């Protein structure tokens, strides 16, 4: 037995957490991983990080650069040298850029991993260097909330620290399931502490989740996509009993009268009573009224807004409505309250609060993205909402990537996409409408992928480059969101096989093209970033692997704005919280994007005529033991995270389906084969599939893998939300 070294490290996927770990290395091999005891029990990891080495050493790790030799998507590859692989990529990029312009190259990177230097999104910098790229707009996770937050508050980092939940008298987990989705490493800890303090916790969700079981005293099941209706009728009750914080509304908000007229029915003749909402949501009117009364009386109270309800065809309305309830109850800017809406806290940064990042990359990485020559001088997109979303016309919405490839300029898109470049992304699997994605990828001239594994997306690559994991390089990590700490993740082992970091690959590729991707080394960047976040003793930070930023008290979003509104206006045009948004009104699509939050039914909702054929509402939820599609190939996680669809006994019995039966979930976009979990833990009329299982079609096209996105529609909400929870399906036994 050799000497065992213990390297402080991290688990930093896009899972909702960023957790300090210790990696044990013997003879150059990781033998075990433990929770790094930094003296803070709230920063313990989840099951995935603790067995990360089984992912690192998985037999199917990509070992060498490879070149496609079969049909695209067939998965047949031949090993090539790095020199040949990078030479081919450099040549193809040059050819495609020169023949069609840089907008023919679409950056379809995923959120494979986060680090301040090493981050899958650094591809944007590289493609800007070579002349530009087509970028996407719309975050798959949260765009409904992002839009709503900018419209309402003028900012996205509006949330309170999780530790502040200890000051709440009541917490509503709305479509939020941090027991499984983590959502801030600290969240599980503080919800547990709050519950034990006697804080009342309520869970509104179509499923009785682990979070509902762990923390809530009451589960309120709701039909997916109808959350805004319930919130609006809660506002009705608060108004009816006159318990709104009128002083707060008068001082800090604009447009409450317009919202009130909608709620009371003065505007449209329909009073948004709990009886009205019951018919839509399936939640008993009495339950809605009681919750509204309790919430209004429980100040301070926090609504923890999950992002899942926002991933529906009118998802931004849900986020706007939660913000409005928070304002009506005066819970904004105070300890124990919440702004709701997007409910996000910028981690670690000394710039918490009303800050809007220039772009997504700046949110996740400190390596400058540079500017995209393609968007220079371009007019604004048709989906522009001035000051909230100012995308230029060249950008493609995340859900429309497949359509853009298939239809190009003749379909109204800015460019004809000829090439996809992907780092740490499994878009075929993780973006809506997988079968359409297959057709789109087949049409490309060239596709390059950096990954750890032969994912369903990687199979379509022309050149496939093996990337290393964070165990094989040095990095600095933020919390995912929430919390104020930095982690130094030391290189535990040399890159396995011929793998390299994405940073190194891009450096070498740039040199091949006569360009300089980075004028600093990994070590130089990391030292610079650490200093930026206030680390004074860099060597100690490296040795400890952990740095806690001191916070005098839990951060409260908009505390300054509430304490002294004259000196500290909200970063909106009116300087106030915009319950009515003139910027949205100017967008002039009132039926789909109203200027005050409303319940509006979008496509594939409760009364869609398609229901005759596809009567069940599909939701695609986050699994406990996968991170999106990551870990699906690691046996322990795969066995314990069964590929199953939840269905209520009422729906199962009607279809002669028993627990553990193999079923087909289908609609006009495709069909998946999956095991049925017949359970009382889901509201009737709804089917839930854990997203992230790997697409594996049989010759007839039936997906044996159980990939949820075979069933989702590649359409976005008017605010830009991914609508992965808005799809209608039928289920049958097979």
């Amino acid at each position, binding site marked *: 037995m050799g000497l065992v070294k213990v390297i402080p490290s991290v688990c930093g996927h896009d899972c909702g957490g960023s957790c300090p770990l210790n990696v044990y290395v013997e003879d150059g091999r990781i*033998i*075990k*991983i*433990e*929770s790094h*005891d930094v003296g803070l*029990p*709230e920063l*313990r*990891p*989840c*099951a*995935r990080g*603790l*067995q990360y*080495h*089984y992912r690192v050493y998985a037999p199917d790790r990509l070992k060498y650069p490879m070149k496609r030799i079969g049909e695209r998507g067939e998965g047949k590859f031949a090993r090539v040298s790095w020199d040949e692989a990078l030479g081919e990529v450099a040549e193809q990029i040059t050819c495609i850029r020169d023949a069609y312009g840089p907008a023919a190259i679409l950056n379809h990177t995923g959120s494979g991993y986060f680090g301040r230097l090493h981050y899958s999104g650094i591809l944007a910098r590289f493609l800007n260097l070579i002349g530009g790229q087509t970028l996407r707009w719309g975050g798959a996770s949260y765009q409904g909330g992002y839009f709503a937050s900018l419209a309402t508050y003028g900012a996205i980092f509006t949330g309170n620290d999780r530790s502040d939940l200890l000051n709440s008298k009541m917490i509503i987990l709305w479509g939020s399931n941090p*027991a*499984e989705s983590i959502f801030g490493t600290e969240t*599980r*800890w503080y919800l*547990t502490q709050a519950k*034990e303090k006697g804080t009342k916790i309520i869970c509104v969700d179509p499923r*009785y989740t*682990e*979070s*509902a*079981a*762990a923390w809530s005293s009451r*589960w309120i*099941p709701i039909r997916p996509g109808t959350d805004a209706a319930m919130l609006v009728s809660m506002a009705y009750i608060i108004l009816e009993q006159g318990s709104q914080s009128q002083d707060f509304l008068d001082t800090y908000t604009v447009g409450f009268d317009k919202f009130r007229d909608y709620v009371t029915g003065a505007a449209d003749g329909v009073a948004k009573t709990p009886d009205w909402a019951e018919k839509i949501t399936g939640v008993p009117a009495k339950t809605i009224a009681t919750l509204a009364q309790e919430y209004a009386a429980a100040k301070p109270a926090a609504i923890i807004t999950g992002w899942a309800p926002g991933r529906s065809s009118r998802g931004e309305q849900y986020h706007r409505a939660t913000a409005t309830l928070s304002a009506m109850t005066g819970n904004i800017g105070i300890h124990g309250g919440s702004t709701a809406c997007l409910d996000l806290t910028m981690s670690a940064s000394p710039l918490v609060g009303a800050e809007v990042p220039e772009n997504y990359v700046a949110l996740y990485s400190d390596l400058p993205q540079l500017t995209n020559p393609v968007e220079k001088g371009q007019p604004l997109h048709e989906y522009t909402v001035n000051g909230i979303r100012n995308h230029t016309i060249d950008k493609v919405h995340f859900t429309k990537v497949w359509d853009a490839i298939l239809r190009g300029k003749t379909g109204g898109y800015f460019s004809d996409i000829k090439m996809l470049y992907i780092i740490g992304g499994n878009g075929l699997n993780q973006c809506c409408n997988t079968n359409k994605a297959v057709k789109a990828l087949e049409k490309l001239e060239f596709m390059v992928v950096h990954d750890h594994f032969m994912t369903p997306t990687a199979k379509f690559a022309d050149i496939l480059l093996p990337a290393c994991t964070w165990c094989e390089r040095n990095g600095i990590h933020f919390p995912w969101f929430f919390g104020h700490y930095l982690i130094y993740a030391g290189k535990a082992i040399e890159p396995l096989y011929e793998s390299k970091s994405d940073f190194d690959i891009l450096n070498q590729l740039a040199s091949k093209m006569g360009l300089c991707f980075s004028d600093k080394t990994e070590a130089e960047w990391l030292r610079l970033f650490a200093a930026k976040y206030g680390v004074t003793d860099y060597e100690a930070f490296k040795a400890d692997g952990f740095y806690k930023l001191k916070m005098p008290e839990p951060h409260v979003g908009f505390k300054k704005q509430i304490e002294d509104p004259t000196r500290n206006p909200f970063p909106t045009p009116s300087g106030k919280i915009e319950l009515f948004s003139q910027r949205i009104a100017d967008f002039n699509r009132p039926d789909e994007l109203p200027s005050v939050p409303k319940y509006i039914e979008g496509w594939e909702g409760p009364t869609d005529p398609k229901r005759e054929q596809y009567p069940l509402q599909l939701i695609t939820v986050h699994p*406990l*033991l996968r991170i999106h599609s990551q870990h699906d190939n690691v*046996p*322990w996680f795969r066995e*314990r995270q069964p590929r199953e669809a939840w269905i*209520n*006994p*009422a729906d199962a019995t009607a279809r002669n389906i028993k627990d553990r039966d193999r079923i087909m979930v289908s609609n006009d976009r495709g069909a998946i084969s999956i095991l049925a979990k017949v*359970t*009382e*833990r*889901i*509201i*009737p009329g709804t089917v839930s599939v854990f997203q992230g299982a790997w697409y594996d079609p049989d010759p007839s096209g039936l997906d044996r893998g159980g990939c949820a996105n075979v069933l989702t529609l590649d359409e976005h909400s008017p605010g830009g939300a991914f609508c992965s929870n808005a799809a209608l399906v039928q289920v049958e036994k097979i």
Partner: protein
Amino acid sequence: MQIGFYYDQSRCIGCDVCSSACRSWNELTPEMPDIIELVSRENGVFPEVSLTHLFLTCFHCAEPSCIPACPDRLLVKRAEDGIVVIPNPEKCTACQLCVEACPYNAPRMVDGGKVGMVKCDMCLARLDEGKAPACVASCPVEALDAGPMEELIAKYGEFMELEGFADYRQTRPSIIFRARDSGRGLDTRIF
């Protein structure tokens, strides 16, 4: 002295961290079984449902039924701390008699019973360094604790019974509980 566990069922969020941490620390290769199993049970009818977890591993019983069951007497209860260990696992013939004897299904057969047995040893090496067992040190909500039974009892009380948990009088397992408040209908056939 007897080292034992505390399990707070009301805190447990069913996240499998205990089991994963155990696998990692004990270097269990993929073909090895879990030493810790978190068993979950759904109860009730929509919308009045509940979900209960139970932490199952070796509880280092005061009167272990596995020790007399082993024909080769491979299992040993340590005098100094009461931890039940298998010092020479390579001698295990995988007869499975210990598995049958244990009310908690704690000894786990490797590779379907062809190779031998694994079970919890309270992470002895960690205890020697003054660290808690890997499961305890990793639980994100501190639903687990380990230590001398008299200390655990002083800290958490003396609840030895949990609905659905095998009668503690059989083997006197070294575990105390805090029950989930609802505590409804755990199926005894499962646990």
